[in-house]
């Protein structure tokens, strides 16, 4: 570890220090209470983002030590995801403010846990070594378990945290076991070394088993069928901003490592794992979408919908071509922004002690808040993949990747299921526009407005003028594509 290496890690270091300081503020007594936890968190995020951009330029001229190079990469791929995570966490901070104000729990702990989770996600995005990735994942998971149970006195929240923790711990163990088997066969945990070792192996059952276990562990993190059972319960029970966090930023981080591990490390065994993952993807799309239809609780519905979206994203992994890789990046943006917009709406609605959790709570929203209802329609259309929203561009990439890779049957399931998904997304539209029921109650605050406005702008802009985003995604994914043995320019 040299001083130069510190530059590579500077954003993470700043974030860790910031989050630790925030944890200590409450114990500093009266002086601490004058500070606003929200603004301090936003300041930490801003500094992290700036340092990330500065460092990413600085490292072009700085040599990384061999040890760090094997563990950690500050490449275009990771920068892309890190900025996405920071943006998502920034918006989650906005979403959380009122929610925290109404509860009697300390915002300092809450934000500092979010900061640690972000730190874990940033390590995941940068990890090129299975141990780095695993540690990042654990940091994220442990913070998430605590956050899911943040409402200690509420039964539902505790239950969600308990379920999430037990299943998460088991899946981490499975993941680790898979990693150890891969290490046993390949002799290294660096993804490129693994790829190099695999290129000489024709058939190896231990390795295949290891890959399957690793895949199972990852599928738990992205909530793909049959490792999805925790999702609806946790989303329902966790505090709503945390459900939003789990379904957006946390999932995007899992997609990032999924893509990097399978594209860089395991591409030689494509034939071995592609059919298994294709089955998982098909099951996720079918079960997620069909189960979402019957849900009356919006948080559960979004939980099932996120299972289905994990299925779509898996198309990008399975197809193992440049289109698929780009599709994962594009879809991550699209999905995060559309979903955050919807969660902002859920948080805005008020009914009894909970936020707008039931489909009925949306009734008549178009009368009382027409602009907001319009934004909500755009978010839902984006999740359904209807042009001219960004969701269509994302789905286009993933479906095209599947067709290009010859997974025609999977593409057919995917498009049919995305038509099915419109059925339950439209249920919310029906409630907002077409039902003359009890008028929706809500409290629109400035932070919520900002989040919804940003999400709306991104969703529409990327849908109508996607070219700059696509160019950025191509630039960000090129190095991973090269490592995966794909020629980025011919593949289109």
């Amino acid at each position, binding site marked *: 570890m040299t001083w130069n290496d510190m530059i590579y890690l500077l954003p993470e270091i700043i974030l860790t220090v910031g989050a630790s300081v925030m944890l200590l503020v409450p114990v500093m007594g009266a002086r601490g209470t004058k500070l606003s936890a929200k603004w301090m968190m936003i300041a930490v995020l801003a500094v992290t983002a700036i340092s990330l951009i500065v460092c990413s330029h600085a490292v072009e001229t700085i040599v990384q030590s061999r040890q760090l190079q094997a563990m950690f990469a500050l490449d275009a791929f990771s920068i892309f995801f890190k900025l996405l995570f920071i943006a998502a966490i920034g918006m989650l901070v906005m979403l959380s403010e009122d929610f925290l104000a109404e509860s009697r729990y300390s915002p300092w702990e809450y934000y500092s846990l979010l900061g640690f989770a972000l730190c874990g996600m940033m390590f995941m995005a940068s990890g090129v070594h299975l141990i780095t990735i695993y540690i990042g994942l654990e940091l994220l998971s442990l913070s998430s378990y605590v956050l899911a149970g943040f409402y200690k006195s509420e039964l539902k929240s505790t239950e969600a945290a308990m379920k999430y923790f037990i299943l998460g711990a088991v899946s981490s163990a499975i993941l680790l076991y898979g990693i150890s088997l891969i290490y046993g066969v390949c002799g290294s945990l660096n993804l490129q070394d693994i790829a190099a070792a695999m290129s000489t192996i024709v058939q190896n059952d231990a390795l295949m088993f290891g890959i399957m276990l690793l895949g199972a562990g990852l599928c738990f993190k992205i909530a793909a069928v049959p490792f999805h059972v925790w999702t609806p319960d946790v989303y329902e029970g966790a505090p709503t901003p945390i459900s939003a966090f789990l379904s957006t930023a946390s999932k995007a981080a899992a997609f990032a490592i999924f893509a990097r591990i399978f594209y860089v490390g395991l591409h030689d065994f494509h034939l071995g794992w592609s059919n298994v993952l294709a089955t998982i993807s098909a099951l996720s799309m079918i079960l997620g979408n069909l189960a979402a239809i019957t849900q009356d609780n919006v948080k559960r519905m979004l939980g099932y919908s996120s299972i289905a979206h994990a299925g779509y994203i898996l198309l990008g992994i399975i197809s193992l071509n440049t289109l698929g890789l780009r599709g994962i990046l594009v879809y991550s943006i699209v999905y995060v922004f559309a979903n955050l917009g919807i969660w902002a709406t859920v948080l805005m609605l008020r009914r009894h002690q909970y936020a707008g959790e039931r489909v009925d709570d949306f009734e008549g929203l178009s009368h009382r808040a027409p602009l907001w209802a319009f934004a909500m329609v755009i978010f839902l259309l984006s999740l359904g993949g209807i042009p001219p929203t960004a969701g269509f561009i994302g789905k286009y990439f993933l479906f095209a990747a599947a067709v*290009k*890779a*010859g997974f*025609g049957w999977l593409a057919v399931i995917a498009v*049919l299921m*995305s*038509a099915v998904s419109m059925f339950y997304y*439209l249920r919310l539209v029906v409630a907002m526009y*077409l039902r003359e029921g009890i008028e929706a109650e809500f409290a629109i605050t400035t932070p919520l407005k900002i989040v919804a406005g940003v999400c709306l702008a991104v969703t529409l802009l990327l849908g109508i003028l996607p070219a700059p985003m696509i160019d950025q995604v191509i630039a960000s994914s090129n190095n991973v594509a090269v490592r995966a043995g794909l020629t980025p320019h011919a593949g289109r």
Partner: protein
Amino acid sequence: MGILNIVTYIPLIGAIVILFFVRKENGPAIRYTATFFAVVDFIVSLYLWFNFDPHGKGVHLFQFRETYTWIPSLGVQYDFGIDGISLLLILLTTFMGIIAVVSSYAAIDHRQKEYYILLLLLQTGMIGTFCALDFFLFYVFWEIMLVPMYFIIGIWGGPRKLYAAIKFFLYTLTGSVVMLLSILALYFFNDGGIPFLNIKGLGNAATFSVLQYHNIGHLIPPTLQFWIFIGFFLGFAIKVPMFPFHTWLPDAHVEAPTAGSIILAAVLLKMGTYGFVRFALPILPDATKQLIIPIVVLSIIGIIYGALVSLVQKDMKKLVAYSSVSHLGFVMLGMFALNPMGLKGSVLQMINHGISTGALFLLVGIIYERRHTRMIADYGGLAKQMPMYATLFLIAALSSMGLPALNGFIGEFTILLGAANKSIVWASFASVGIVLGAAYLLWLYQRVFWGPLDNPANKNVPDVNRRELGMLLALVFFMVWIGIKPAVFFDIIEEPVNYIVQKVDPTYFARQPLTYPPAAPVVVSAVETTR
């Protein structure tokens, strides 16, 4: 910014103006703003009519081209251009756009602002679909149309509006996402192929340009053509709607407000048939020829089934809705005769159906606004009470059933000629449909307008007012114009139709040198010498 973009986006601008500058309580201002933009759009679209060169061939077949880069990394272009077929359909759209707006004045009394915004958005989507010469762009506009129509049915519809709106949305969405896969298969065939399935690509630069696919269509292996065709077929046949996929139509029509039904019948259904003539036929010639029989059988079933079901309807609107199934069957039949005569009739019949059925829906809407019932049994003897209405209804009905000197006759007759040219059996089945068409419409007319005026509720129904009369007379004008001067219209679609026939059946014209293409002093002199 060329003329096609202007025509496409005027309604969108109108929608934005209403959204931001008109207060929602100010009903008249909303209505007149919407009308203003619809009328301006129609007037601007007339520019296309007067400046279109009907004899453009080859690179000049598609005119008013506008091409901009949009997503270069995917080969997506913003490419607009129209031939004679699109021209007529665009004019139909802008014209019916005015009718739709004006016919809603009295019918829509709540949430007017949203209503007119959606109506104008829908119009932008429809015109864009007819202009697009890039598959990606086409797909975007195609899907954009779905959302406003869903809301129009869902908010301002009848008692079962929720069911009808969702059914409409899901049916069409399912068709179009499957179509998207076909588009992708074409895209990869033109590009690098699909190695995994042993499909060799052509290695061309990635593009979504429709014209490029027109040129490479015959190179696609027949099996792949078949599957691509199936995808297109699902997308388009649901929209048409062809016989087994038609079940969304009666629900959507019956529940939609009058203007929704007018637009649905006049323009949205044409999207399906337009898709067939623009994409499926010229790009997939082998699959088209291979699937003639199944499609013609479905069309004939549609013609007769639609007519028979119309015959037994108790609800006027449902009757007109099912008659659409029958009429669109004719359009499909003429198209799959795959000769210039049949195709010309088919294209003209798309326009005719738009005008006639649009007029019938408008007429049903007018009486419904007065009496709030569409049941045939509630009426009788209306001719005495509403003579003007009765006359106009008669003209629309006659036009729809194909009386000579009105538009319907020209379309159906040409289709029958084209079909008979291919097989006399097809034509005989189709003519049964014409007879049944006369039966259900005349019987409807008899029950509603003749007989004693015995329902007291009908005794004080006012006749059509000036606004309604204006709309109906405009529609009647087009019925008569097409009926007595069809040559003007045939002239415009001559070249595109020959182009499509040439693509589907490259040797067609070589086989009949004397008849087609009908150019000719050469032909005349040949006839003279034989004398």
